[in-house]
């Protein structure tokens, strides 16, 4: 009599399922141990020592942030405080944020915490996307800080009548329905002046996160669509 094939044996498949699942789970946990330290937030000492973190410390708000093509990596990366010879962040060029460029680690962290909490308390990601995740009813906010519309020549800054990007953003956040840009408007969410400041810090910090080149070509293309 021929021996029964293992391929039609339920025990064999049950054990296979357990082994494969266990292996995949262990691999995920192992990768998690590698990833979490890499995305743990840096601090002011890192920035002062010129150490680039995937998620920089909160005092990044004291610096100028840009989003530039990296030849080495083949996509855009956040550049903090100007570029060095290797094409990465030099952490030199500062930029005033609400009139100051000397926010301490504690102050900046407090501001960022307020902003992150605010982003959750106001359900931001149920209209917008943050790091591309959320709803699709409003623009992605991953690099909103770098959006030309909020820059010194941008339409949004002009509309709010403020002279800096951060003040314009904070003004808009507090009274969004006073500044209708499109038929689809942002509702008033009861954001206070302090919360708005925190939210803008949160947005500026988010723009400094290394998102592997997402979104592509952000703010680089002007005109050319529909002949504009």
């Amino acid at each position, binding site marked *: 009599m021929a021996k029964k094939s293992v391929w039609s044996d*339920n025990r064999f*498949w049950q054990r296979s*399922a357990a082994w*494969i*699942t266990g292996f*995949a789970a262990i691999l*995920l946990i192992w*990768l*998690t141990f590698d990833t*979490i330290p*890499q*995305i*743990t*937030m840096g601090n002011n000492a890192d920035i002062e020592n010129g150490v680039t973190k*995937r*998620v920089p410390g909160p005092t990044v708000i004291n610096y100028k942030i840009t989003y530039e093509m990296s030849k080495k990596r083949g996509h855009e990366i956040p550049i903090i405080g100007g570029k060095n010879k290797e094409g990465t962040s030099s952490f030199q060029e500062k930029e005033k944020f609400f009139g100051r460029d000397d926010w301490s680690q504690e102050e900046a*962290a407090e501001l960022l915490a307020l902003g*992150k*909490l605010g982003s959750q*308390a*106001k*359900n931001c*990601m*149920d*209209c917008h*996307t*943050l*790091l*591309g*995740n*959320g*709803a*699709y*009813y*409003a*623009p*992605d906010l*991953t690099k*909103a800080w770098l959006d*030309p*519309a909020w820059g010194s020549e941008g*339409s949004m800054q002009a509309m709010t009548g403020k002279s800096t990007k951060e003040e314009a953003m904070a003004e808009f956040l507090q009274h969004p329905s006073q500044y209708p*840009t499109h*038929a*689809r408007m942002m*509702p*008033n969410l*009861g954001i206070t002046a302090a*919360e708005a400041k925190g*939210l803008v810090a949160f947005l500026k910090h988010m723009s400094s*996160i290394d998102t*592997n*080149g*997402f*979104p*592509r070509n*952000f*703010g680089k*293309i002007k005109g050319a*669509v529909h002949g504009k």
Partner: protein
Amino acid sequence: MANNYLTSESKKLATWYFTFAAIIFGAQLLFGLVAAIQYVMPGFLFEIIDFSIARIIHINALVVWMVFAMMGSVYWLLPDETGIETVGIGLGKLLYWVFVAAIVVVVLVYLFIQVGPADQTTIWFITEGREYIEAPRWADIGIVIVVLGFIYNLYATGMKGNRSGIVTVLMADMLAFAGIYLAGMGYTDNISIDQYWWWWVIHLWVEATWEVFVGSIAAYGLITMIGAHRKVVEMWLWIEVAMLFGSGILGIGHHYFWIGTPEYWWEIGALFSALEPLPLVAMFIHVLYDWGKMQGEEDALGKERSVITNKPAFTWFVLNAFGNFLGAGIWGFFHTLPQVNLYTHGTQFTSAHGHLAFFGAYATILIGMFYIGVQGKNGIKIMHATKKSIWSTAMIVGGVMGMTVALTAAGYVQVLVSRAQMGATWAGYFDGQAGIWFAQGMDWRLIMGVITFLGFMVLIADLLSTGKAAHHKR
């Protein structure tokens, strides 16, 4: 519903779960319509029920009705599989009411309080503001307690009675399902770490543990509805578990392309998520194959008789096998490679996939379970389709497919204009939204959404009336 043929307390409890699930299903569709109208008429309910609130309820209701229907399904099949009455049925009933009450409170807070100040009290009592799992922390803890009670019942019953392969898979799967929820309960200032753990809940639910759950229910359905051989079905279930977890667990990498996580997730996410459709194809083939095999055995006896004992439920099970493969498999694969996802991430493309995948993979089979519940409750041996069940199936399937196609078209506009041409800025976003094909896509989505909702109304009418129809064999 005076005639209740159910003698099992577990099955009676299951019908409670199915009933509340169906009500919340209706709420899901209703608030989906509100959100769909807002895309077409942005002033609709502005600063009353804003898009964010409509969407929270739309998606939270989706998750909740499915969890309810899943728990109901387990209570339904436990007596059949284990051969004994479910242990701890009193606890099950108590937790049912606790869960229902908690959900009502959470929804009322979403609707009438909506947002809070930027502090921890909001996180604890109003909203956690994290897409899909916005429920405040008090509710998180409540959910954990309810689910622990449910797991206790499942384990106690499985260990006391006959522990079939299906029950064994469910025991392992439901424990993972509950445990993973804990990953989404914390708070951190670091949005990258936040989203890292948040995806553990979302992804490991819908692309791993929920899929295995569907495999178990499909196995149960094949045995009970067409008399498929348990040995074959359970062997296939173990193969499915291996394939689903083997691809799905590390497939989580496709959510880690752009959230700050290292580049190696590109390769891991691309490879494993590209494998994710395979078990779904396999499940589709398996369901059709078993059906053909059982019908063939019957035909060989020379009787002109269908092997299916519940036509509407089996229709939904077959739709599940196909819809899972199409919605989760094909529409998911469309945008799972990082080279494509760089442009499609966070567009209506995702939304198209979301609609067809949740419908195809989960709504279908759970509607099938509703019909199995109706059959059992009314003591029907062979349940036939009614005009209503045929119409509701056609309208719901047509409506969801229509929404998916419309959203896919809108997604293309968004990907090409907002992303590829305009580089994802505020202005680029609105240029894409203003595109005529985008606008038309949103019009069609609303029309198809209305058809889906009407189909749902017919479905409810059918579920409430078909038990009394005369043409079933009792």
